[in-house]
């Protein structure tokens, strides 16, 4: 099978259309299981009471905000290096979903911080670097839309995405490098997770639900990008239904 075939917008458009319902359905099923665990299977936390249940959306959203940025910077970089149209479109399609995930992480973090730390916001390393990530997404999106020539917009926004990528490891390690109010990671590769297994299971299911949702949203948006950028192309005229 020739995978490179799918690097052209013309062949990727229908393929993405076929994948979207599967990812949406997975997101819905996993989300339902995850929410059931979050609200009915997981017990009350002995320290934080019920407020801790925010973890089931906060952590997945925060992970997605960083992961999507890395994937976006990767595709932007590929587009910059090899001048491939679809890569740049993929980067553009990921940015709004990444920005929304960052917003969700900040919002849910704030609603969690209030009952546990007694404050909605604090200028701590983890929170501040996550806020910078949100501004990087917004900067990327506005730079892209400020330049009329799409190929030049691709290049300029790709440089911004690549330079901004340095912020992601800073967010990730901020709880280790600085003394922060934000707790350290509950899950890591190097040691056993510091949470009850049912809570961990619920969180991981929610992570996969968010993952599936973000892929579906990015694929839906890349199809829109393709329709916009390829406007007038001959292949679009033969498009039936899809």
């Amino acid at each position, binding site marked *: 099978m020739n995978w490179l075939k799918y690097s052209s917008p013309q062949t990727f458009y229908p393929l993405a259309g076929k994948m979207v319902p599967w990812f949406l359905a997975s997101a819905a099923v996993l989300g339902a299981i995850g929410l059931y665990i979050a609200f009915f299977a997981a017990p009350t936390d002995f320290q934080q*009471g019920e407020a801790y249940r925010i973890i089931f959306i906060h952590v997945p*959203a925060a992970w997605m905000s960083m992961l999507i940025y890395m994937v976006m910077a990767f595709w932007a970089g590929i587009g910059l290096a090899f001048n491939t149209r679809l890569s740049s479109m993929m980067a553009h399609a990921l940015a709004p979903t990444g920005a929304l995930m960052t917003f969700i992480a900040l919002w849910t973090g704030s*609603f969690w911080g*209030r009952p546990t730390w007694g404050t909605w916001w604090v200028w701590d390393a983890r929170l501040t670097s996550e806020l910078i990530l949100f501004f990087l997404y917004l900067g990327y999106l506005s730079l892209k839309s400020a330049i009329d020539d799409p190929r030049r917009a691709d290049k300029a926004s790709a440089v911004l995405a690549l330079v901004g990528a340095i912020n992601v490891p800073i967010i990730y390690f901020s709880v280790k490098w600085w003394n922060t109010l934000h707790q350290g990671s509950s899950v890591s590769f190097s040691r056993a997770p510091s949470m009850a297994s049912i809570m961990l299971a619920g969180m991981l299911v929610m992570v996969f639900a968010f993952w599936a949702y973000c892929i579906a949203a990015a694929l*839906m*948006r890349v199809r*829109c990008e393709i*329709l916009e950028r390829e406007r007038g192309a001959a292949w679009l*005229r033969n*498009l039936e239904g899809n």
Partner: protein
Amino acid sequence: MQWASASEFFAMGGSALYVWGAYGMTMLIVAIELVGLRRRARTLREAAGRNAQAHSD
């Protein structure tokens, strides 16, 4: 099961504002993004359809 009644569930042990505020905003954002994407795709497909029509006439 954690909850004795539905009202106990919605009260979230006194943390209702925080828990439902966090979950509510997340649901709202997901709904807005999906509706927006659907609408954008439909508009673009209709435009592409009109374009195809114009070329075939």
